[in-house]
């Protein structure tokens, strides 16, 4: 997976669809990233922070009991063990270092579940920058604990009350802040979306996890690459970073969206948030809301490079339902002692559903475990106990996963 064309296109997707006021900022960011990414000293500082502060490299864990249960060999890339509990830190450390290099002193970010907001607040604290996180009013209520985490870290969390008051509106609000504060502010976008250079830059900052995983898999698999590489897709950053590490291998790449937010399956090409990609939208082109049990996947679009990878057939995209996800969530907890975030539980759910069929018995599968489930346990408890406080009850039967 190389750079996009000069205008930021991945095939017919991507680009830079922003108001003229933002074009120069995007161009400056593209140039700054381009030069930093060529600069060995930048890589050195980034690598050092990711190592000594971020907890990289994260391990790949072979799941013996789960593998036995499913009849396929399951390996997990453990981004849950990175600082702040998800892959989001890779991108945020990269962008905040770049922001410092550009002389910016203020970071702004959008967040849905709060994971990217927490990561940005963390980086801002580390770098001594001020930080404002935009979060939909609806999401703030759903993720109250993460709001408090961000505030503990010194960030200001601003409620977004416009539009549908969720993630997509938080992106709009962050863009509106950015256009008015370009002199001192960097917009730390949280996924492989938005205008050029974001989809490319964020993928490059996440590439570290795929590059590590490829080498770790080769050690575990006697020099071979896994047959399958599977990751969940909200905007698509953990998947893009993962795929970047495996695109030139023979591994089959699978992105898994939430059934309620499956832009690739149910969306149509469109333009929002500065990019052309697949989007959930109505006939006229009004953007719809995504809705699933996992706030981190509730984005009505998908990164443009994923649209392109699907177009050229290099990756396939599928979806997992809330019920399948809860099942996979408890299955991993009970077979491996790992509580995953609900987002990567989508990737696991796809593996569970396809083990022994699409994924032939005995084949190897790498799943990116993009984050840990601490943030989700209260919600899952409510879902499992039938308390509808935080959503609908979903029938789940971890024992119902067929033995093989």
């Amino acid at each position, binding site marked *: 997976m190389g750079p996009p064309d000069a205008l930021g296109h991945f095939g017919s997707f991507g680009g830079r669809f922003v108001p*003229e006021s933002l*074009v120069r900022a995007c161009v400056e960011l593209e140039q700054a990233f381009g030069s930093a990414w060529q600069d060995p000293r930048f890589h050195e500082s980034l690598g050092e922070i990711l190592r000594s502060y971020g907890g990289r490299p994260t391990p790949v864990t072979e799941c013996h009991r789960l593998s036995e249960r499913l009849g396929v060999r399951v390996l997990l890339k453990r981004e849950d063990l990175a600082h702040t509990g998800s892959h989001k830190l890779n991108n945020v450390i990269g962008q905040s270092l770049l922001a410092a290099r550009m002389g910016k002193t203020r970071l702004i970010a959008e967040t849905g579940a709060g994971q990217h907001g927490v990561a940005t607040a963390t980086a801002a604290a580390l770098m001594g920058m001020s930080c404002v996180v935009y979060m939909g009013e609806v999401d703030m209520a759903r993720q109250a604990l993460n709001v408090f985490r961000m505030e503990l870290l010194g960030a200001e969390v601003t409620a977004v009350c*416009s539009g549908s008051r969720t993630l997509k509106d938080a992106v709009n609000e962050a863009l509106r802040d950015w256009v008015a504060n370009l002199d001192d502010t960097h917009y730390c976008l949280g996924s492989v979306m938005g205008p050029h250079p974001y989809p490319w830059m964020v993928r490059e900052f996440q590439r570290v996890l795929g590059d590590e995983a490829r080498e770790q898999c080769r050690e575990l698999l006697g020099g071979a690459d896994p047959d399958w590489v599977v990751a969940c897709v909200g905007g698509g950053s953990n998947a893009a970073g993962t795929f970047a590490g495996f695109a030139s291998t023979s591994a089959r790449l699978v992105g898994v969206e939430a059934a309620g937010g499956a832009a690739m399956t149910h969306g149509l090409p469109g333009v929002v948030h500065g990019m052309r990609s697949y989007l959930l939208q109505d006939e*006229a082109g009004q953007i719809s809301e995504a809705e699933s049990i996992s706030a981190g996947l509730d984005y009505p679009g998908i990164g443009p490079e994923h649209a392109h990878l699907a177009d050229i057939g290099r990756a396939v995209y599928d979806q997992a339902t809330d019920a399948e996800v809860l099942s996979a969530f408890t299955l991993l907890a009970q077979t491996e002692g790992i509580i995953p975030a609900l987002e990567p539980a989508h990737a696991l759910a796809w593996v569970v559903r396809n083990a022994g069929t699409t994924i032939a018995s005995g084949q190897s599968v790498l799943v990116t475990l993009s984050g840990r489930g601490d943030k989700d346990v209260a919600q899952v408890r409510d879902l499992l106990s039938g308390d509808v406080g935080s959503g609908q009850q979903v029938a789940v039967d971890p024992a119902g996963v067929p033995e093989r």
Partner: protein
Amino acid sequence: MREHLDARLASLHSAGRKILVAYLTAGMAPNWTEMLQALAAGGADAIEIGLPFSDPMIDGPVIQRACVRAIAAGTTPQGVLSEVARLDIEVPLAVMTYYNLVFRAGHERMAGMMADAGVTGAIVPDLSLEESGPWCESADRHGIATVMLVAPSTPEERARLICDRSRAFVYAVGLMGVTGERAALAPSATAIGERLGPLTELPVCVGIGVSSPSQASQVSAHADGVIVGSAIVGRILDGAEPDEVAAFTASLRRGLDANARSAGA
């Protein structure tokens, strides 16, 4: 007969009249077409009809609210354009729309629908120069003048290219920020008028952050006209009747005309 945006503004410009472009979000109130008449009666030289969009990225709270209301009321691009087609209104009409509504409809189809509705201009604020080719071709083919935007942050060379690609007028963005009323005029609003004047034969109109008669008057000393949106939309959201909207438009008109006289004297 409704005049073409391009022709109308060119003749006003050469006659030395300062241009007033008024913006309204289509469907924001049940009587929005009456509001169009009120804007025309108050002295607007052209009207920008905003198609409501779910994600109006460069708009502030006022126009955001208008979009939410309009969409909730079932407003669609097609519905708006067929209502506009039936309007008996003399001032030239432009459509302001975020690009996805154009992209979804298809460039040719949208340009055709606009032309059929008697719309002669289009402003697509999130369509950057680099991505504008396919739309501009369709618009040109259907006689729709695509008005391009230049921002305070736009470098000189790029500003020249944008002015060259613009039709009817150049939309000079008055400040780095979203649409909305500001208590004071940003220095960038006058600076950009001065900067773009020498780059183009087209009239240069300044919009975003121009909301009062006195701000309109101040800006027009440095530019060929102004675009006023949030101040009008905000009044309608607050319950203003058509005659009040006409009166407010007339006050903007007087602000501009006062300046035209003193500048011409």
